[in-house]
């Protein structure tokens, strides 16, 4: 049975649904709503690349791109989440104090890095 028309129909259907998801990216009231839409579009891109590969007949050449997407896709989302965690911390109310505050230095050191401190042997190697 020749499945190629089926795969083409499937690819076009997925694209059409991606177009619907684009509504959330364009209209979403907050940035994280947009982020959500982009995440869905990114994951479905991997499926579409595999389908294009199957239609072309040489999937093995397309599979590496998909693997790269599967591994890298959530970095953007993670960066947005980290961004909001950082700016949710209120800025110091006294800008003069903050400008010269040397105490900011050591405080950075102990934020969240117990692994780095408890592991001095590996610190030297890249």
């Amino acid at each position, binding site marked *: 049975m020749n499945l190629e028309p089926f795969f083409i129909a499937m690819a076009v259907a997925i694209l059409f649904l991606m177009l619907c998801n*684009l509504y959330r990216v364009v209209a979403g009231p907050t940035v994280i709503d*947009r982020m959500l839409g*982009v995440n869905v579009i990114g994951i479905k*891109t991997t499926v579409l690349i595999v389908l294009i590969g199957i239609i072309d007949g040489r999937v093995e050449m397309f599979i590496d791109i998909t693997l790269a997407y599967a591994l890298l896709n959530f970095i953007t989302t993670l*960066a947005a989440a980290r*961004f909001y965690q950082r700016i949710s911390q209120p800025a110091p109310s006294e800008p003069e104090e903050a400008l010269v505050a040397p105490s900011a230095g050591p405080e950075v050191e102990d*934020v969240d890095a117990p692994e780095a401190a408890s592991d001095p042997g590996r610190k030297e190697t890249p």
Partner: protein
Amino acid sequence: MTWDASLLWQFDILVLVMMVICAVTALALQGLLSSAIVTGAYSFLICLMWTHMMAVDVAFTEAAVGAAISTVIFLGTAQYINRWIKKDPPREQGIKQLTLVIGVICAVMMLSATRDLPDWADPASPASTHLSPGYIEQGYHETATPNVVTAVLADYRGYDTMFEAVVVFAAALVVMVLLRRTSHKHRKVLHLRPKREGRDTVLRGAAQSIIPVMQIFALYVLFHGHYSPGGGFQGGVIFGASFILLALCYNLKFSMNRFREHLVLWCCACGVLLYAGIGAACLGLGWNFLGYAALADLLGVSGKMARSYGILAVEIGVGITVMAVMVSLYYDLASGGDLEEGL
């Protein structure tokens, strides 16, 4: 009618419509973060377009760059600038309309000029009949590299790629020089990421299972670039992305303890030096600059295998440079230049 239904024009038109929507949205939205994120969606769509146009190497590069680097550096910059856009000043409305009119006129002129271009996907178009068949038909006999793109990239157009690597290297240096501050007087207001005991466990668990695979995959992409899509640029970007992921899941200091900044800069320089050094070695052996066949006697292999090995060595150089540059861009842009607390 000679058009071929297997070209999937429905697919293309849907993707292109989505790209235009994304482009207009990215420029029309008021918030900067929203624009950066819509640009991320744009990158996914153009990767799809390139995959469908059978440009797998290009699609691979776009996948690595668009998913891992560009949006992250946008977000990193957004920490240090005013995120709120005010309405455009009213006095510029006239200029805006004038620009629109001129732009539309130019666009219509260019659109009418497309009638003279060869039909899309025409196998007999001038671009596809003069030079490129030579690369496809001779490339394998001359360089023993099945991936024609890799062969052309690192061998036939080696100069081009070398100076692209130099440009990337220069960009890392420029970013560092622009942002680095030595005086403690102008220390910026630090927004520390709040301490979150136990709430990052999921992210760290995911990162611990993904980062090693990512690095091995990057090396695979780099070394398998002769036989499948991939090569120095893609492998370098993916390897650099693993350090970015480490910094995002833990913090910047943690990543910088693994890959220190002076080491990053050494890597930037060493990659370019490796590339240029191989070229100079060929020159010293009496051939042209980057004529890898000169290495045949040195390696004890035939001329075409020497070219294959030369391509591999050059790709390693490119990979090291690109990896270090991506990490350097992230370190500098996400921390505002003082390398203390990043995204």
